[in-house]
C-alpha cells in the first residue's frame, strides 16, 4: 500500500483505537496515541519519497497526493512536534476526563495536517483543512464551561477563512477545470495574474485566519491559552504553520514568480490591485501583527496568554518575511517557522508542566519555582533565548536572515517595526523567567515538584534542538533550500555553520556557540558549587522598604504592572482593539437579525396575508418578473 495512505491510516486508525481503548484504561489511550504518531513518523521517514504521486478520482474530481520538498519541510514540524506532544500529553493529561475524546481529536489533528501536506489538489487540501479545524475546535472547548465562547469565536473565524478559501477554490475550478495545485500554477503562469486577484486574496484570507494574521487573529489568544497545553504546543507550533504553508504557496509560487509588473485595473472594489500591492499589504499586516502581538503579550499576567500573544507576534515575522519574498527573507521566514515550532512548542509544554505541578500559570500568583522545577526552568530559559533571537540559539539565525533580507530589499520601515517588536519581546520573555521561576519562593508552592520524566523528555529534546540549530543551522538550511527550489528559488546558498551577509561579513556560529556554551557551563558549575550550601537569606539592608521591616512571609518580588512605564508609553496603541470592533459588528448584526425574525409573527392571519400579498404582487409584476 501507498506511504500516504498508510500514514493516514495509522493516524486516523490510532485516533479511533485510542478513543475506544479509553474505556479500558486512561493511560492506554495516551500510549496508543503516542505509539500511533511515533510509528507513523518512523514509517513515513523510512519510506519518504518526493517523487511518488498517487492519483485517484472521487465524486467526479481528480485527486492527487504526493510530497514536494516544501511540504516535506513542514512534515518535520508536524510529525516531530506531534510525536513529542503526544508523549508529553500522556502524563500531562493523566488525571483529566474524556481522554479518549482528547486523543481522538489530537490524532485527527495530526493526521489531517499530514493530509494537508500530502494534498496536491485543492479539494483534498480543503477537506483535510476542515477536519483539522473542527478537530482543533473540539479540543479548544475541551476544558468546558468558560471555553464555549472562545470555541464559537474560533469556529466563526475558521469558518470565514475556510469558506473564503472554498470560494476561491471553486472559482479556480471554474477557470482551470482542475483542482490540481500544479495545474493552477501552470494556468497562472500562462494567462498571468490579472483577473485572478480575487482568488488570491480569498486564499490569503483563508490561510491568514489560521496563521493569526491581523485582523483575523482575534480567536487565537484565548484559543491557544485555553486548550490543554499538550495540544497548544502543537496548535501554535504546527497547526498555525499550515497557514504559513498555504501562504508560502500563494505568496511565493503565485505572486512572486508571476508578478510581471502589469497593473491591470479590475474596476470597482479591486481598482488598482496588483501583485505588488497585495504583497505590500501582507507585509505590513504581518509587521503590525508582530508589533501588536508583542505589545499585548507584555500586558498579560497569565503566562499561557502571554505565550499565545507571542505566538501571534512570531507568526507576524514569518508572514512578513514570506511576503517580502526575497531569497534571504524567505529563508529567514521558513527558518523561523521551524524554530518557532520548536521553541514555542517547548515553552507551551513548560508552561503546561508549571500548570500541572503548581496549579496555575498566573505570574502574579507563583514565583521562585527554579529550585522546584530546575529542568523546566532550563527548557524555558533556552526557549526564550531562542525566541528573543539571542545568539547562540536558533532564533538568532532566523532573525539575522530576516533582518538582512529586509534591509537588502530596502524595507526599512518594516525593519523598524520588526526590530521594535523583537526588542520588546525581550521584555516579556524576561517576565516569564522572572515571574515564574525567579524571585522569592511562595508558601503555596512549597510542595511543588518537578514534572514527570515523560514530560521533561520532549521539552528537553526541543530545547536541545534550538541549540543544535543555533550552532549548525545548515542542518535546517538544507531542507529549506530544497523547499525553496520547489517554489522557484534556485541555487540558494547556505553553509553548515556560517552565516554571512551581502557585504561579505561572515560569522562562524560554531565558535561563537562553543565559546558561549563553555562560559555558560563554567559559570553554572561555579554558581552551583558556590550556592549549593543552601538558601541565602536576603538581609533587610539589601532592599529598600521605606524603613519598614518586611516580615518573612511577605513577598518582595513584584509582579503586578510589571512594565507599567512602558505600557503607559504605548497606551494609545491599546485603545483600539480588533476585538471591540468585531463585538460592535456582532451587536449590530444581532439587532438586525432580531428585526428580521419578527417577519415570522406567529400569527396565522399574518401568514395568510403574506400569501395574498405575495400572490398579488406576483400577478401585478408578472410581466417584469417573467418578461
Amino acid at each position, binding site marked *: 500500500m501507498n506511504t500516504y495512505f498508510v500514514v493516514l491510516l495509522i493516524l486516523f486508525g490510532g485516533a479511533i483505537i485510542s478513543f475506544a481503548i479509553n474505556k479500558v484504561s486512561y493511560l492506554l489511550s495516551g500510549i496508543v496515541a503516542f505509539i500511533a504518531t511515533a510509528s507513523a513518523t518512523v514509517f513515513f521517514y523510512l519510506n519518504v519519497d518526493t517523487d511518488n504521486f498517487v492519483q485517484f478520482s*472521487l*465524486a*467526479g474530481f481528480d485527486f492527487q497526493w504526493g510530497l514536494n520538498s516544501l511540504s516535506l519541510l513542514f512534515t518535520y514540524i508536524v510529525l516531530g512536534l506531534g510525536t513529542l506532544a503526544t508523549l508529553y500529553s500522556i502524563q500531562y493529561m493523566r488525571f483529566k476526563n474524556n481522554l479518549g475524546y482528547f486523543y481522538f481529536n489530537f490524532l485527527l489533528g495530526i493526521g489531517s495536517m499530514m493530509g494537508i501536506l500530502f494534498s496536491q489538489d485543492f*479539494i483534498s487540501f*480543503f*477537506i483535510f483543512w*476542515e*477536519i483539522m*479545524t*473542527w478537530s482543533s*475546535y473540539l479540543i479548544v*472547548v475541551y476544558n*468546558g*464551561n468558560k*471555553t*464555549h465562547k472562545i*470555541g*464559537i469565536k474560533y*469556529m*466563526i473565524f475558521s*469558518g*470565514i477563512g475556510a*469558506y*473564503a478559501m*472554498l*470560494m476561491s477554490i*471553486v*472559482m479556480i*475550478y*471554474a477557470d482551470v477545470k482542475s483542482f490540481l495545485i500544479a495545474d493552477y500554477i501552470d494556468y497562472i503562469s500562462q494567462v498571468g495574474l490579472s483577473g485572478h486577484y*480575487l482568488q488570491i486574496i480569498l486564499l490569503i484570507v483563508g490561510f491568514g485566519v489560521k496563521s493569526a494574521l491581523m485582523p483575523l487573529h482575534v480567536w487565537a489568544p484565548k484559543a491557544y491559552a485555553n486548550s490543554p497545553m499538550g495540544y497548544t504546543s502543537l496548535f501554535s507550533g504546527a497547526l498555525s504553520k499550515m497557514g504559513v504553508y498555504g501562504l508560502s504557496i500563494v505568496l511565493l509560487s503565485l505572486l512572486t514568480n508571476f508578478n510581471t509588473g502589469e497593473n491591470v485595473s479590475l474596476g470597482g472594489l479591486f481598482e488598482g490591485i496588483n501583485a505588488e500591492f497585495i504583497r505590500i499589504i501582507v507585509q505590513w499586516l504581518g509587521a503590525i501583527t508582530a508589533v501588536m502581538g508583542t505589545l499585548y503579550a507584555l500586558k498579560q499576567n497569565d503566562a499561557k496568554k502571554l505565550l499565545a500573544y507571542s505566538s501571534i507576534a512570531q507568526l507576524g515575522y514569518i508572514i512578513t518575511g514570506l511576503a517580502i519574498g526575497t531569497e534571504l527573507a524567505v529563508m529567514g521566514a521558513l527558518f523561523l517557522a521551524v524554530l518557532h515550532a520548536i521553541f514555542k512548542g517547548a515553552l507551551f509544554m513548560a508552561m503546561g508542566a508549571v500548570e500541572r505541578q503548581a496549579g496555575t500559570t498566573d505570574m502574579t500568583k507563583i514565583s521562585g519555582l527554579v529550585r522546584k522545577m530546575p529542568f523546566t526552568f532550563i527548557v524555558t530559559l533556552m526557549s526564550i533565548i531562542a525566541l528573543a533571537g539571542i545568539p547562540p540559539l536558533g532564533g538568532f539565525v532566523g532573525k539575522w536572515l530576516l533582518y538582512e533580507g529586509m534591509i537588502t530589499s530596502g524595507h526599512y520601515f518594516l525593519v523598524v517595526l520588526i526590530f521594535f517588536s523583537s526588542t520588546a519581546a525581550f521584555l516579556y520573555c524576561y517576565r516569564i523567567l522572572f515571574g515564574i521561576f525567579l524571585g522569592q519562593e511562595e508558601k503555596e508552592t512549597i510542595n511543588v515538584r518537578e514534572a514527570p520524566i515523560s514530560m521533561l523528555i520532549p521539552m528537553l529534546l526541543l530545547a536541545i534542538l534550538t541549540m543544535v540549530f543555533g550552532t549548525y543551522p545548515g542542518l535546517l538550511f538544507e531542507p529549506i533550500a530544497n523547499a525553496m527550489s520547489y517554489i522557484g528559488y534556485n541555487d540558494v546558498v547556505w553553509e553548515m555553520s556560517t552565516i554571512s551577509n551581502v557585504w561579505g561579513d561572515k560569522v562562524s556560529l560554531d565558535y561563537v556557540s562553543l565559546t558561549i556554551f563553555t562560559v555558560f557551563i563554567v559559570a553554572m558549575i561555579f554558581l552551583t558549587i558556590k550556592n549549593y550550601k543552601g538558601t541565602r537569606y536576603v538581609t533587610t539592608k539589601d532592599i529598600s522598604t521605606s524603613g519598614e521591616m518586611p516580615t518573612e512571609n511577605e513577598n518582595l518580588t513584584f509582579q503586578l504592572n510589571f512594565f507599567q512605564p512602558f505600557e503607559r508609553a504605548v497606551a494609545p496603541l491599546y485603545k483600539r482593539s480588533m476585538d471591540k470592533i468585531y463585538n460592535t459588528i456582532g451587536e449590530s448584526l444581532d439587532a*438586525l*437579525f*432580531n428585526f*428580521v*425574525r419578527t*417577519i*415570522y409573527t*406567529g400569527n*396565522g392571519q*399574518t*401568514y*395568510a396575508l*403574506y*400569501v*395574498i*400579498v*405575495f*400572490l398579488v404582487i*406576483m*400577478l401585478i409584476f*408578472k*410581466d417584469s*418578473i*417573467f*418578461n
Partner: protein
Amino acid sequence: MVISPVHYIAVPLLAAFVIPLFAKLNREFVRIIPGIVLLYLSYVSIVLMNQVSSTGTISEVLAGWAPPFGINLVFSAFSGFLASLMTFMGLVIWIYSYRFKKIDDEPALKFYVLFLMLITGAIGIVLTGDIFNLFVFLEIVGISAYSLTSFYRNRDGAEAGFKYLLLGAFASTLILLGIILLYSSIGTLNMADIAQKSHLIPTSLKVSIFILFVVGFGIEAEMFPLNGWAPDAYSQAPGPVGAAFSGIAVKAGMYVIIRLIYTLFDIEGSFQFLIVMGLITTIIAEVSAMKQTNLKRMLAYSSIGQMGIVMVAFGIGTREAIIAGLFLMLNHAIIKGLLFLSSSYLVYNDDNKLISSLSGLGKRLPLVSFLFALGAFAIVGLPPFSGFWSRLYLLLAAADKELIYLIAIILIIAVIEIVYYFRVINKLYFKDIKVKSDDVQKPSINAVISMSILGILIIAIGIYPDLVTSYLGNAADALLDKAGYIENVLVDINN
C-alpha cells in the same frame, strides 16, 4: 406479481385501510403492517431503480385509459430517485417510531394510518403524470399533515395545525384555480401533453397559471413568504413527523415546482425567479434560525433555509446544478431527518423545547448527543460528511456560471449556520449538567438503530460520495430531457 410503480400507491393506500381491521385481531399489527409495506416499497424501489438505469423511464398506464386521457405514473430516474428517497426515509422513520413513547400514549393506529397516507401522497405527487391526480395527492399529503401536526391535541398543536390548514387551503384553492385555467385553455391534464402544448397558451395567461401554481406549491415547498406554517408545524408535531415533513412532504412540493419550471412551462425568467426566491428564503430563514431559543423551531427554520438553497440550485439550471440540488435534497432528508429524530430525545421532557435546557445532556445521552452533533457537523457542510459534497457541487455549479455573489451569499449563510449549530453543540457538551439523570429519556433500541442508519449513511456518503453520484447524474439527465419525458408518456399509448 410484476413489480410496477403502481405498487407505490396501491399498497400503502390499501394497507392504510386494512390496518384498522387487523388492529381488531392484534394491536401489534398496527405497528408491523406499515413496516412490512415500507420494506416492500423499498424492495420495489431497488428493483425499479435498477430497471430504470438499464431500460430508461417506465411509464405505467392506469385503468386502461391511455394518456393523455387516462392517468399514468412516470417512474423516471428523477422521479424514481425522489420516490426511493421518500420510501427510504419512511422506512427509517417507521423504525424510529415503532416504540416512540409518545406515540404509544396516543392512539398509534391514527399515527400509522396518517403516516402511510402522507408517504403515499408524497410519492404519488412525485410519480403521477397527471396534474389533477397530482392535486388529489397533494390533498392527501395536506390532510394527513394537518392531522399529524396537531397529533397531541393540545392547544399549541391545534394552533399549529390550524395555521397549516389555513395556508394549505389557500394552496389548494390556488392550484385548483390554476388547473381550471389550464384545462380551459388547452384541454388536457396530462403533464406530458401540457408540456407539449404549453406554447399554445397565450403568454400572459400562461404566466398567470404559473404564478398560481408556484404560490400554491410554494406553500408546501416552504418558499418565503409562504412558509409561515412551517416553524409551528415542525415544533408542535411529534419528532418523527418533523423528520417526515422535512424528508418527505416538503420534497414533494419542491418536486412540483421543479417540474413546473423544467418540464411543464417554458417561461423566461422563471429560473432567475427561483434563484432570487431561494436566496430570500434562505437568508431570512437562517437569520431567524439564529435567534431561536426553541430547538425544534431552530431546526424548522434551518430546514426552510436548506430548501431555499435547493431552490437556488435548481434555479441555476445546469446539469451540475441539478445534481447539486438533488444531492442537497438527499442530504437534507437524511441529515435533517437525523437532527429531528435525535432532537426529539434531547428535548423530550421540556415542553418549551428550549435550547438552554440541553445543558450538559451530552453526558446523560451520549449516543443521541453524538448523533445530533454528527448531523450538525454534516449540515453546516464540514468534510468528511455528506453535506460537504452537496455544497461543493452547488458552489462549483454557481462558479461555472460566474455567479460570484451567489457563492459569497451561500458561504456567509454557512457561517451563520455554524454559529447556531455550534451553539447547540456547546450547550450539549461543554456546559454544566442541569438535568437530573432520571429526567432524561433514554432512546429505545429501534430509535438508536434508525438514527444510526442515518448517521452511518452521512459518514459513508461523506467519505465515498460515489455511492450516490451516479444516481444523481441519471436523475439530472432525466429531468433535463424534456422531449424524452413527453415521448415516453405519449408514445407508450400507441404500443
